[in-house]
């Protein structure tokens, strides 16, 4: 079987089947709750494909995609970084404070904020890596624990050091927030691009420019994982750790490097809303992106394109579900779709993968044919 056919078969059959299954399950849930699935999905589609919704979908997908990439880096070497949640939230708080504290020319200012966020995420995740190689603490345990520490450390720093003082914040009761990042530290939106195509966005809505960073990180991820020695060592360690070690990979160093890299990418997760929309960290800064990122990584099988589609799907679902409330349909049905699709896609991949593997073995055994002394002139030539 050709490489491409295999790729197509595995990577499309499974998610499509899973998606169909997920919608079927959600339809049943809708029927049970006395709603028409056809109406619900029709309304979602109609609302979700409007221009505003598409822009919003992309904006929602960007942090999810970065989060998935962070998780996938760990997955590639068999490490389960559950700590993306804590890493990005701590990184966002510190980066917001750092961004507001300095004034630099625009590109430098943004780069500084990005560097701070990546450093915080990387260090935080690196702690889990170090604990694993020095003390044998499983990264699932340590990253979960580090999440709690990160939430509280973030809250402490926020309320004691980073929070904007009331007298600077103007009149009235306000929710706590960090000082605003000046213009030079904000990521430009892509609205001019949208308008160049002749579309008009409603005021207050913008296509966040950070999507460019997400795409670049996605491409870098693919290149590093598939085309560099580091990526090979990473994957080899994930697929077969003893073989990797015998081949010369320093397992301990690899664990730390992978965790730091994963955390550094996790640090980027919060920057899209921070630099493109809020310009400050507030108490209602978006949470849960790290955990959803795990689902997206599973959905996209750690493949940069697959995860992009997964992130867009999740973005679409969460945006289009907003219409359901207006129709009196519980929007939680979307959570069912998300949950079922992740579970069933994992199963579906495994099933399809096995089918392909069996087919490959068959093809190979045909070539190997009647060994050991079989003349097999045709095959010998290939």
């Amino acid at each position: 079987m050709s490489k491409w056919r295999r790729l197509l078969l595995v990577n499309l059959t499974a998610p499509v089947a899973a998606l169909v299954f997920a919608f079927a399950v959600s339809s049943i849930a809708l029927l049970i709750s006395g709603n028409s699935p056809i109406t619900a999905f029709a309304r979602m589609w109609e609302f979700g494909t409007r221009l505003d919704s598409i822009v919003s979908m992309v904006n929602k997908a960007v942090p999810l995609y970065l989060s998935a990439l962070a998780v996938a880096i760990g997955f590639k070497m068999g490490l389960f970084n559950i700590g993306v949640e804590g890493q990005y939230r701590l990184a966002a708080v510190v980066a917001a404070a750092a961004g507001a504290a300095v004034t630099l020319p625009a590109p430098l200012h943004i780069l500084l904020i990005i560097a701070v966020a990546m450093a915080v995420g990387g260090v935080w995740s690196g702690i889990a890596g170090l604990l694993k190689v020095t003390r044998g603490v499983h990264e699932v345990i340590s990253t979960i624990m580090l999440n709690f520490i990160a939430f509280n450390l973030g809250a402490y720093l926020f309320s004691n050091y980073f929070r904007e003082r009331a007298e600077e914040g103007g009149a009235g009761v306000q929710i706590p927030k960090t000082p605003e990042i000046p213009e030079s530290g904000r990521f430009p939106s892509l609205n001019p691009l949208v308008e160049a195509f002749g579309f008009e966005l409603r005021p207050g809505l913008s296509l966040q420019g950070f999507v460019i960073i997400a795409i670049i990180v996605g491409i870098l991820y693919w290149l590093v994982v598939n085309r560099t020695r580091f990526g090979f060592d990473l994957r080899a360690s994930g697929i077969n750790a003893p073989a990797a070690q015998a081949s010369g990979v320093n397992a301990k160093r690899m664990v730390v490097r992978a965790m730091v890299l994963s955390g550094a990418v996790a640090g980027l997760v919060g920057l899209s809303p921070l630099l493109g929309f809020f310009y400050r960290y507030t108490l209602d800064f978006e949470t849960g992106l790290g955990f959803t990122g795990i689902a997206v990584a599973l959905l996209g099988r750690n493949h940069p394109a697959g995860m992009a589609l997964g992130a867009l799907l999740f973005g679409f679902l969460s945006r289009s579900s907003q219409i359901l409330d207006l129709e009196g349909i519980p929007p939680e049905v979307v959570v069912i779709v998300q949950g079922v699709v992740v579970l069933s896609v994992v199963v579906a991949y495994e099933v399809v993968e096995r089918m392909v593997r069996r087919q490959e073995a068959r093809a190979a055994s045909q070539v190997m044919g009647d060994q050991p002394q079989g003349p097999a002139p045709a095959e010998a030539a290939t």
Partner: protein
Amino acid sequence: MTDSAPAIELQGITKRFPGVIANEDVTLDIRRGEVHAIVGENGAGKSTLMKILYGMQPPDEGTIRLDGAEVEFRSPKDAIAAGIGMVHQHFMLAEQLTVLENVILGSEPTTGPRIDLRQARRRIQELGDRYGMDVDPDVLLEELEVGQRQRVEIIKVLFRGAEILILDEPTAVLVPQEVEELFKNIRELTEQGETVVFISHKLDEVLEIADRITVMRQGRTVATVAPDEVTSRELAELMVGSELPTPDTRQTQAGEHVVLSLEGATVREGPRTTLDAVDLTLREGEIVGVAGVEGNGQAVLIDVILGLKELAEGRVRYGDQDITDWATRRRREAGIAYIPEDRHHEGLLLPQPLWENTFLGHQTDPELTRGQWLRPDAARRRTETIIQRYDVRTPGVDVAAHALSGGNQQKYIIGREMVAEPALLIAAHPTRGIDVGAQAAVWDLIRQARDDGLAVLLVSADLDELIGLSDRLSVILRGRLVAELDPSVVTPEELGAHMTGAAVEDSP
């Protein structure tokens, strides 16, 4: 010892797997009280046949008769109930339990809700007396040696009332002395009326122990013969269907240049000294064999040379450099090649295509990489070379490694190591689990490596292989090199005696 209806009669058994016919029209009769050997290469269908007989898989076609009555097994439970017991090649025992606990596990005799240990102990004692297999029921399994463990497995099967015992490659893990012991047990069993089905590919053993031998080839039974009718060579030719080579004749000149030397290499793991003051020298153009019962430090020795385990004492020298503190990668870059004992465990990335596997162990090879960047095109070219030069049968370089047969995987690994032009080759059990045809090819490749001037360290459990290939032979026992033997005069029995420590003092 024979009477009218055979104990087991298989007729027209056929079993297909997707793309493979594992058994085709297999016919076999096993008489009560005989030792019936089933021989064949790996992949000849022995295991499938036994799984069918033991109820682990249903046949697609054909019938099984026990004492003339047709039976159908849905699970091993049915087979056990019918008096068939299986002793697996890989023991199904719990190390942390006693012999008694292991034996009764899953079929505990009870009085009310309690396990009747006294009854269990009595029955084990009885079985031991009856079949001449004495094992202390109260000793922990982890304290037993391999041969004794195997006896526990046999008692376990007898405890469940088996009258027909299937022994799957029972000698694979034993040294010659233990094999003798096992054969004594088998004879005892058949004298007491038990029937033994003995699966093996070691022909000398089969000729010694079996009353009748059935040969399988490519899923079919090709012949059933009595041991006094055939020689082991004829048997082997029945197995492969052609003439076959042997590991023989050396005509080597070991060079003067020392490639690798260990000086007092000592490894401690916890309280145990797993490698004890080992001195070893390898020169260019020679194969040094290391013989030993598994678990006596061979693996540690290899890890030390590869830099995977740290030395507590001693030095490792490679050429004129002291590499004791070198990381694994640096050693591999310097030309240490490795054919691992378990290719799935240490040698391959099974789900990855062959061309990606070519990077494994050669991630820094300047031909395959440019700085930090991999060069897939170069890896594909090299993989093509390996496939051609080392006769790897595969549909192409994009095939995942798991799709290849064991022999082809091994040829690929050897090729991958050899095309990088190493100076030292470490070969651990290079022919384990591959068929006779590929085995000969692997032996040739190792000999070729030696003739090309490499120093080769050969660790193996196959004594014929060690004697046939090695220029010098060392025996490792409890982490120490206890004897150096001349492979041109030593016999497998002598070697076995050294391996078990029975002959430490009177070595030549």
